[in-house]
């Protein structure tokens, strides 16, 4: 199996999503609060996984713009849940060494006095291995 195919399989497994169930209604994209910040739109995640173009998916801005707010997961009529796919793609990235989206050095300047613990731990979980 080539590595993209393997990654696509991995994404399907981690997310538990069967992208073939998608009927391309676009409700995820209609729902997404980060839509305008994304280069690959939520409804497109599915076809990237089906076409095994994981390279483009993991290099997309969208990976880091998804809020994991689960609105698309909740509203998807086909049980496809694109939010889970993008989460899984992010896992694929952060599990590779040196691919962390959040570097230790950049943290101090991002902090402010009110910033809650929760924000740091959440961001760490999402952005780093």
């Amino acid at each position, binding site marked *: 199996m080539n590595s993209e195919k393997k990654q696509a399989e991995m994404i399907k497994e981690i997310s538990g999503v069967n992208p073939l169930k998608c009927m391309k209604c676009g409700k995820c994209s209609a*729902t997404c609060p980060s839509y305008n910040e994304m280069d690959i739109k939520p409804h497109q995640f599915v076809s990237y996984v089906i076409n095994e173009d994981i390279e483009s998916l993991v290099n997309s801005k969208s990976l880091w713009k998804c809020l994991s707010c689960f609105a698309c997961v909740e509203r998807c009529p086909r049980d496809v849940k694109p939010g889970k796919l993008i989460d899984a793609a992010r896992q694929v990235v952060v599990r590779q060494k040196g691919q962390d989206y959040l570097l230790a050095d950049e943290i101090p300047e991002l902090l402010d006095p009110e910033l809650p613990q929760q924000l740091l731990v959440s961001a760490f979980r999402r952005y780093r291995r």
Partner: protein
Amino acid sequence: MQRIGVFVCHCGSNIAATVDVSKVAEMALMEPGVVHAEDYQYMCSEAGQAKIAAAIQEKGLTGIVVCSCSPRMHEATFRKAAERAGLNPYMVEIANIREHCSWIHKDMEEATKKAVILMRAAVAKVNLNTPLQAGESRVTKRALVIGGGIAGIQTALDIADAGYEVDIVEKTPSIGGRMSQLDKTFPTLDCSACILTPKMVEAAAHDKIKIYTYSEVEKVSGFVGDFTVDIRKKARSVDMNKCTGCGVCQEKCPSKKAPSEFNRGLNTRSAIYTPFAQAIPNVPVIDREACIKFKTGKCGICSKVCQAGAIDYEQKDEIVTEKYGAIVVATGFDTIKLDRYDEYAYSQSKDVITSLELERVMNAAGPTHGHLERLSDGKAPKEIVFIQCVGSRCADDRGKPYCSKICCMYTAKHAMLIRDKYPDVNVTVFYIDVRTPGKNFDEFYRRAVEQYGVNYIKGQVGKVIPQPDGKLLVQGSDLLDNRQILKEADMVVLATAIEPNPDVRKIATMLTASIDTNNFLTEAHAKLRPVESPTAGIFLSGVCQGPKDIPETVAQAGAAAVKAIGLLAKDKLLTNPCTAQADILLCNGCSTCENVCPYGAITYEDKEVNDHGIRETRRVAVVNNALCQGCGACTVACPSGAMDLQGFSNRQILAEVDAICR
């Protein structure tokens, strides 16, 4: 010993491509009792049947096995062929080597082996078959139609026009059904009432049709040709014979807060009411939940104002028992509840409505007298958004997995009507696919776009966001432009999925008619018997069988009527001879079988028996062959093996088991 012929069908390449049919025939000749075996291209064809007939006559066959498609497909065909050749039709067994073998296996060797085993089992069974004679049962020449919508009315009219008595049982106070709630109909934009009302009147006036409104089917017993049905006539509290339909009672009724079912709860009605002006019968009912007289004992105004003296507060539910030969189910549909789709703000804003509610809004007899206005503030909308597929085509448990079929067309109709009547109103339709298979349907939809300028956007809506100023912000996708749209609207219309009337499950159980996971009644064959239920004597009309529009419903209603007429036209029906038989010499008289018989077909009698010379009177089971449907529950309940089922006897089934496990 039987003389058995085995006939192996190629079914073109359907069987022959994966099963070595000549091998099956060859192996058959090694089975005990088999004296003839052959294979042929199409056994069900005339030539194939001729081969069977020839072999029966030439070889003096006493039983035959056809290795072919499912017995559900051609058992009857081959039985008839055997009968014509002088063989008892019940000496025919089918080995299903198509659906259960060639179609599901790919490996030729494996499939052939299995086919041989299936053939052996059938041969083993035929070896123990005995000729059976079908009995006869009478046909009551009267049909029952459950549901008084367009489907039920059309079926009843067609049956009655053929000269048979037919009764309609309708749950609500008037016949008319969903169609009476519609304003216009696609694709010709006829006024719904204008085409429906004459049919309602015709049904009411027809001397062969009897209509029970405000009534429900309570109990069904019997079988094809001879059903006995209890109908509950709910207390109307108004004497049907005295009421003149003047309407004064409704005018004077002080309790006017009950939500109008007919107007989908968008306005209210009085406690004594007829659902709509053209109701048939034009006799009101008292809604006892809403009536002050029933709630407090005081009031009685309707009784005072009724000059005919028709008001009867003491009226009770009445059970009518009738006999029918055929039953047609036409229970129709409702729209699904939208509680779990609140991203569309249906429960949060009055200006988010379903399409069926829009029908009422657009209708001159509706809550806004036909003026298109917002239900929140009565203002005329300038921007209307339609959302399609709300609850249809859903894989999750919120909605329905099927396409509701009618929404694309009625949405186009609504959009067109609005643009026609109010050219200054902008109409946007969010769609996933536009599905318009039907005569003049796509042309209709294209007219909405091209002639009326309706704005179709491919993409679903994610959320409807009510604004403080009362507007509705619709956040949707435009998949073709790849952008997220925020559109301000004054009204949002949801093309809500339809589902079978929830009562249908209860009715299906009473009729022992099968029903699918979506509560649609199952047809006997998806392609070839679409208006018959697998349960003999039960026919399907309209949406209870699957989503369909008016023209299709009317066509199916007619088809169901023809099937019912075909049944009623017979004087006698042949009964299934595969019934239970008690061996009185073995019967203990314990009544265990009687306790499990769902048809009350078993009774106990004191009978004189001759048990190997000993004559004595014993309490023994007796099966009524007209009532017995052949389920076999009694045969297993009987500890002594006295009860056996003809056509599926213990020894026959054991022989099949042995053949398979050999």
